[in-house]
């Protein structure tokens, strides 16, 4: 074989091996909070907060052009911090927010909403914490922005002014 070809084959093999190793070793070694972003909302079934016989499933989110999912609980202190921002999103910006009440006592949750206001158009109940895992949640509070059932943005922790602006930007 010609020396030129030998060098070419050796060079190509080295490049291929390098790419293979790079792809194999270049995996995420830290947590991936955005794993669910750009994915359709998975199948979920929640009990309605106001009527246990009514079920809320993923179709309710797919039908809406723009909707927020907010996971909250009355016992969660950061949820209280973000509550005024949720109220402002609902009242001022007319954004549809669906709440997921996570592992909470119904009466405590009702009292929380009475005291601080209800920003949610509907609330589903996740007593066992299964739905939050289905959604790939890391904890509460957590907020998802959905466009026709597609998760376009996710925020872990209480929302703040910056996140509100980001949500409003996404709505445009």
């Amino acid at each position, binding site marked *: 074989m010609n020396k030129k070809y030998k060098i070419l084959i050796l060079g190509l093999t080295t490049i291929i091996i390098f790419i293979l190793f790079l792809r*194999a070793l270049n995996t995420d070694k830290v*947590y991936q909070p955005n794993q669910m972003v750009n994915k359709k909302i998975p199948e979920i079934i929640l009990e309605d907060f106001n009527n246990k016989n009514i079920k809320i499933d993923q179709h309710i989110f797919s039908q809406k052009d723009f909707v927020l999912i907010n996971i909250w609980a009355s016992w969660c202190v950061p949820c209280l911090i973000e509550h005024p921002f949720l109220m402002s999103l609902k009242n001022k910006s007319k954004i549809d927010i669906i709440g997921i009440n996570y592992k909470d006592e119904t009466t405590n949750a009702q009292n929380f909403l009475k005291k601080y206001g209800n920003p949610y158009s509907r609330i589903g109940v996740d007593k066992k914490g299964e739905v*939050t895992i289905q959604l790939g949640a890391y904890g509460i509070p957590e907020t998802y922005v959905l466009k026709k059932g597609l998760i376009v943005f996710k925020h872990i922790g209480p929302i703040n002014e910056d996140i509100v602006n980001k949500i409003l930007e996404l709505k445009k």
Partner: protein
Amino acid sequence: MKKIIFMIIYLILSKHAISASEELKNKIYKNIRCIVCQGQSIYDSDTDFAIDLKKLISKKLENGENEKQIYDFLISRYGEWIVFNPILSFYSLALWLVPLIILAIGGFLIFRFNYKKKS
């Protein structure tokens, strides 16, 4: 008498089945990272999240899902990071095989070179 023998066999078999499913459960628990205390597996963790995840995995196993389906589900929600042992993919397989292939080709070339030299 037959009934007693049947019952003994049934008890032995069911005990084996239960311990096998417990073993599988624990194997999965030990391979899933707790997202709250990230150095630990959910097997070692008593956080709310770990407990919920263990319940969900147990439910999925009872529903007939296998180990791979459970890992696939969790990876789709939390990324590959959630499992301690990475899933065998084309690239990870290549990582194992390429050095061996290079070694084999190198050995063959050395052998051929020496053979030519001798002859």
